[in-house]
């Protein structure tokens, strides 16, 4: 680990840098320049990571969730094959030094969400210092909220120690204001999809939101989102209809969507459908909840907000189904597709409850279990095509 730190201090590029394609080399240079200019970089993976604390440390938080099968063979040299592709891809990018954000992160913030990730982080820590947030198993018991508050405080202290700084309540409060503004901008963009037909393709929207997780500057990205929302709204009001009126309106729920935006999202939109709501952990269900900027205990307000995020790793998790039903109404959804990444037990099991809730509301539901490979694209085309035909 000492070696890793020295390496990060001098910002050398990976050994295999010259073998990378132009785009990847450019990303590495961009991140290297950011670091050389004194930028602090903190990698994270999960929506439960309290980003305001990272922001308040003057660092940029970047999401390191792997979304490509490119490095999975490398990961499988260490990890078992029957593991979720997100975990394998994340570890593979770290071990093969192919992701500039992972490579140049000062620290990675992991969390005890699912078993696979939790144990993978122990191996990841050998490559990069990894701080683990201990996420409670639920939110219903008073000590769970207190425990999570303590976890948020420990993260704050770890970052203070790492950067030799003090994070004040004032720092946290202004970070909260910036993130709230960004979340309002995101929600405003989501809201445009409630129009019939929606204002834009779901693939465009999901890709935009995915890009947010690689942005170094919250305010800069917020301005971009606000401009995009204004532009799309103006175009729509001017009569532009990029989505056909007869496109079936789908909500995609389940595991993180980043790695299957094309495999599932684009397939939906090539088969007569449109994604009007991406109901995953980086989507509206997470972004719509804001933090009280004036809360007397700002760290407590942050920790409470994050623990309320609905993910299948917590038990019980009925709030997720309730929220999905609200989204179904808000976006006039014709059908729900649940996307489960291979070997994601919690979402796969919770799918039975989601199916019941969605069908109980009279809306057709289909579950797809897939990974990042192209092997089952033909089958996915058929399933999604057939599902849309039934709507």
């Amino acid at each position, binding site marked *: 680990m000492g070696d890793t730190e020295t390496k990060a201090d001098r910002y050398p590029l990976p050994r295999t840098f010259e073998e990378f394609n132009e785009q990847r080399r450019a990303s590495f240079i961009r991140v290297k320049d950011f670091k050389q200019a004194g930028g602090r970089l903190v990698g994270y993976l999960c929506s439960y990571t309290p980003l305001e604390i990272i922001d308040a440390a003057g660092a940029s938080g970047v999401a390191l969730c792997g979304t490509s099968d490119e490095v999975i063979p490398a990961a499988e040299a260490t990890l078992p094959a029957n593991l979720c592709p997100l975990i394998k891809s994340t570890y593979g990018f770290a071990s093969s030094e192919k992701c500039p954000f992972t490579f140049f992160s000062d620290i990675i913030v992991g969390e005890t969400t699912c078993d696979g990730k939790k144990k993978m982080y122990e191996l990841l820590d050998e490559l990069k210092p990894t701080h683990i947030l201990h996420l409670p198993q639920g939110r219903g018991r008073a000590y769970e909220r207190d425990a999570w508050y303590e976890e948020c405080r420990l993260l704050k202290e770890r970052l203070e120690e790492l950067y030799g700084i003090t994070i004040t309540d004032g720092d946290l409060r202004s970070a909260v204001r910036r993130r709230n503004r960004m979340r309002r901008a995101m929600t405003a963009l989501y809201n445009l999809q409630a129009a019939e037909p929606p204002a834009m393709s779901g693939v465009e929207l999901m890709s935009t939101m995915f890009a947010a997780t690689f942005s170094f500057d919250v305010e800069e990205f917020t301005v971009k989102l606000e401009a995009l929302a204004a532009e799309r709204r103006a175009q729509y009001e001017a009569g532009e209809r990029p989505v056909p009126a007869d496109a079936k309106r789908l909500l995609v729920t389940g595991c993180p969507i980043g790695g299957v935006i094309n495999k599932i999202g684009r397939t939906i939109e090539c088969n007569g459908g449109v994604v009007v709501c991406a109901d995953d952990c980086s989507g509206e269900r997470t972004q719509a909840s804001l933090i009280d900027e004036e809360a007397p205990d700002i760290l407590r307000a942050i920790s409470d907000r994050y623990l309320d995020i609905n993910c299948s790793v917590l038990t019980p998790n009925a709030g997720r189904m309730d929220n999905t039903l609200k989204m179904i109404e808000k976006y006039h959804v014709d059908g729900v597709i649940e996307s489960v990444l291979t070997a994601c037990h919690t979402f796969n099991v919770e799918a039975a409850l989601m199916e019941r809730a969605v069908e109980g509301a009279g809306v057709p539901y289909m579950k797809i279990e897939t990974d990042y490979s192209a092997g089952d694209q033909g089958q996915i085309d*058929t399933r999604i095509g057939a599902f849309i035909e039934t709507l």
Partner: protein
Amino acid sequence: MGSRYGIGVDIGSTATKVAVLDRDGALVHSELMPTGYSSVDAADRVAHALAAAGHDVESDAVRIVATGYGRIAVPYADKVVTEITCHGIGAACLFGPQGTVVDVGGQDTKVIQLKGGRVVKFAMNDKCAAGTGRFLEIMADRLGVSQEEMARLARGGAETKISSMCTVFAESEVISLVGRGVPRADIARGVVDSVVARVAALAGQSPTGPFFLTGGLCDNAFVVERLSDALGAPVTTCPEARYAGALGAAERALAL
């Protein structure tokens, strides 16, 4: 609605099926041919066969819907519809608007719930060859008999357990049964029961019958019997059920 004929072209992984319906929905012509290596080539052969039967695929008098895994390879199709919808419509035409369609295809098995002649839900085994036509094909090959012969042998065979789910492992299991001198009829019985068990497990997720069998196994009487036993409910089928996908596609074409 001005067309005189609706044509359904179902290019499956193993077989290509064609159905021609007249304006009244009566089946006037059908074709069955191996798909072969290329679905583009299969589509081409279909066009020739239809021409020989007096149906020009480019003519204004016909509307064509393509379905099956090769559905995107049919350049003369007016519309592409997935095989799940087509099997549902085809089965509804053959058997009635309400029930569960079980389609055992060459590379996947589908279970389709029908209500009011429409597909309301479906489940698929499309990740594994167990419980598909491919499993029977490979095992018949290993036993050195045709699939029809294997079914005939199976009827007279004693119950034999083949426990491997994986087709490759099941093949090894069959090889070891052969090596141990287990009669061919018994192994054939084991093979049929293995497919039936897998299909029944998938179909069992669908609440109630009546069950309709479509696809390549519909004229395999022993499989139909064993499937009825496994589901504990009658399974209806008929020789035309092999063409269910093509019939459904033709039905759709008539409506274009």
